[in-house]
């Protein structure tokens, strides 16, 4: 029987208007992989920030190895053996991998100078031991997100951490990269490191963890051994209700060809891509991160220049020099980065929605505020955005509601073809379902959709047809009847 290494006792934390954590108590056993699951807003991040010494004011106690600890800073938490790999990685981009691994405590020669040789050698050993092929003298800015995570993990190893907290490490990883990550986790576990693993993805939680704790609305719902529970029961615990994870279908027969792309090429990014999009269709685009999916869309929409190839809209050749021209032709884009590209966080909902077309709410250059509010209210209602009012700033909304506001921007604009790039990334289970329903509803109303997604069940579930991209090339096209996870995955890699 493993010993308890970490225990939280009656921990509560409040923010103005919200109780983020409400009397949470549970313990974690040494050498285990312990998953913490819950919807967005369940309190996972808050809990991690308390353990990491970022939030220092809270009620309750944190005990480590049988001793009560009070962290007044992230440094103190680190000294007690806790390391966190945050969602937003904190590395020095221009420095090399080795420098980052030893950041803050570089190896020194006898003279007190930095011992580059030893540092590079040790870092290389460490990376090799994790079975990763990486040259540690490369600057971090040249790495993929997955590789950066590995550098973060190496940093924690140098810091001699006993407890490694990983906050949604898989959110941006491809399946291949995930396998590497899982290998590393298994190895760390063998070395006696306790791992706290936060994730939205059910498969991983079941594959990886020994035990799991469920949080919901800031409350601790339960801690149990992973083998004691199945997926449906876990989802039930997370959301407190049964969620129908069947994907809705629009049952629309696609009409005439709306968009035709012929041999579109942007050298080194995507090459020779041809496909058609029919009216009323939901076209899914699958592939690994970095396969050129987002870039292909940017090329079509005139955001990036392309080298060759043609795009036809309703049979007429178009070549957009600027994204605005594409918008005028009826395209809308829900970008992958909801906070940075999709919305203006400090603006109220209404200003965000009406940003795509000021012409509709103005006459002779003068804005009619009442019209703006009216349109905003209409769209907030049809999309069921949960917010106190249309004057609420977008930054105060949950991820799912923020995404609805971004979608509302294009409904307000009355765009005909909507391109959604990772529409449900980082959104909790319940809100995901709502987004799927919305996509179907919109298609029924006459819209046409392209949905880029890294989540296979999602892209298989909602699309009528699926394009698979692999390293900038079209690896295949499947109808929803013939597509299976295995088939698509084989094309991806």
């Amino acid at each position, binding site marked *: 029987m493993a010993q308890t290494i970490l225990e939280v006792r009656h921990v509560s934390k409040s923010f103005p208007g919200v109780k983020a954590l409400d009397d949470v108590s549970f313990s974690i056993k040494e050498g285990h992989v312990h998953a913490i699951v819950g919807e967005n807003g369940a309190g996972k991040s808050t809990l991690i920030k308390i353990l990491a010494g970022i939030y220092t004011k809270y009620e309750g106690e944190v005990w480590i190895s049988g001793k009560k600890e009070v962290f007044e800073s992230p440094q103190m938490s680190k000294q007690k053996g806790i390391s966190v790999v945050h969602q937003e990685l904190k590395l020095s981009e221009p420095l090399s991998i080795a420098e980052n691994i030893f950041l803050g405590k570089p190896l020194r020669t006898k003279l007190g100078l930095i011992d580059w040789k030893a540092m590079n050698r040790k870092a290389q050993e460490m990376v090799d031991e994790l079975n990763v092929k990486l040259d540690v003298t490369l600057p971090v800015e040249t790495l993929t997100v997955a590789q950066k995570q590995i550098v973060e993990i190496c940093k924690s190893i140098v810091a001699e951490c006993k407890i490694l907290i990983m906050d949604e490490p898989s959110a941006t990883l491809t399946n291949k990269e995930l396998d590497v990550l899982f290998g590393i986790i298994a190895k760390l576990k063998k070395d006696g490191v306790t791992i706290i693993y936060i994730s939205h993805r059910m498969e991983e939680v079941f594959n990886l963890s020994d035990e799991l704790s469920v949080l919901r609305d800031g409350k601790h719902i339960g801690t149990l051994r992973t083998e004691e529970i199945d997926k449906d029961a876990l989802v039930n615990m997370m959301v407190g209700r049964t969620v129908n994870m069947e994907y809705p279908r629009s049952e629309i027969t696609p009409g005439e060809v709306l968009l035709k792309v012929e041999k579109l090429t942007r050298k080194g990014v995507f090459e020779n891509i041809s496909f058609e999009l029919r009216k009323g269709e939901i076209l899914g685009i699958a592939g690994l991160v970095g396969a050129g999916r987002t870039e292909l869309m940017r090329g079509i929409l005139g955001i990036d220049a392309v080298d060759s190839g043609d795009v036809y809209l309703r049979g007429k050749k178009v070549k957009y020099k600027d994204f605005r021209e594409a918008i*005028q032709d009826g395209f809308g884009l829900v970008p992958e980065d909801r906070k*940075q*590209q*999709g919305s203006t*966080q400090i*603006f109220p909902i209404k*200003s965000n929605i009406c*940003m795509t077309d*000021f012409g509709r709410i103005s006459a002779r250059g003068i804005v009619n505020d009442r019209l703006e509010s009216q349109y905003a209210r209409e769209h907030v209602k049809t999309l069921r955005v949960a917010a106190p009012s249309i004057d609420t700033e977008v930054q105060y909304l949950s991820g799912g509601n923020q995404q609805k506001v971004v979608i509302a921007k294009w409904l307000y604009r009355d765009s005909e073809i909507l391109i959604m790039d990772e529409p449900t990334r980082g959104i909790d289970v319940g809100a995901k379902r709502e987004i799927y329903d919305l996509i179907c509803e919109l298609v029924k109303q006459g819209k046409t959709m392209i949905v880029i997604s890294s989540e296979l069940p999602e892209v298989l579930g909602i699309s009528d047809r699926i394009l698979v991209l692999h390293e900038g090339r079209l690896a295949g096209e499947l109808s929803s009847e013939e597509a299976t996870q295995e088939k698509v995955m084989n094309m991806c890699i």
Partner: protein
Amino acid sequence: MSEANVKGTENKIYGFMKKLSKEYMILIALLIIVLVFSFSSKYFFTANNFMTILLQSATVAIVAIGQAFIMLGGNLDLSLGQNVCLSSYVAAILIKDFGINPWLGLLLCIATAMFIGLINGILVAIVRIPTFIATLGVMNICTGMAKILSKSATISNVSSEISFLGRGYLFGIVPVSAVIMILMFVLASFVAKKTVLGRYIYSIGGNEEAAYFSGISVKKYTLISYVMAGACVGVGAVVLLSRLNAVTISSGNAYEFDAVIGCVLGGISLSGGKGKVVQALFGVIFLMVLFNGMTQLNVNPFVQDVVKGAVLIIAIAIDVLRNRVKN
């Protein structure tokens, strides 16, 4: 139901007070320093002194409108003060040495200032040089050009025909320059709040990338914001030139900083997209009252410089902290 109504009204009053304290904190601060100076100096609380403050504020406040638009769009302009100097010299030389109609001279003053704004706009929006560096360069060019044109000499007695703009009084009591200032603020507030142009500028300042992905031409409207600032500089220069009836090489000196301080004090965020143009007016008046009061109390001018720097830092610190709490 009536209970809910009472609560609703209470909330409304509470909300209003909160908004007042948040958005117009500067007015409360202004009231406090006016009280303090009134009790400590017998010359401070006089109609005459208030008139002086208003006259001194006019040009800086009008320049601050330009800075406000630039800041709302998420940028900064360091060349505004030197632009005042250069465009004033251009007008003065044309009027005095070339004998052109003074009114035409004033128009050309505004045109020059707008041209400088256009250059700033091209550098920042099209060439995409960081705003700080681009406008710093243009600031130096303006200083140099002003010195070349004037050989650093003061030009006085420019034209008696235009001097009423800066010195005259409407109905014998209201300074014309103050009227121009108020009109500029009314116009600017209207543009910022009610026009599509204003929305574009706010949207770009709020989040440039999101604005681009909403189909807003970031380049075009950033450029326009700089030209607008140039126009404000031009009007400010006209008021200054006509008040002094002269131009010196120190005309407009450090106005860009006074404008930034005024804007930030008023509550216009340095990070863009947040604030109201009228707040710049209150901020500038606060600054002018502060310096007027210190002069009345015979505070050493060097000490006043230190105070100015400190006020800038405090104002920016408040802005930074305000945004940090939200994150």
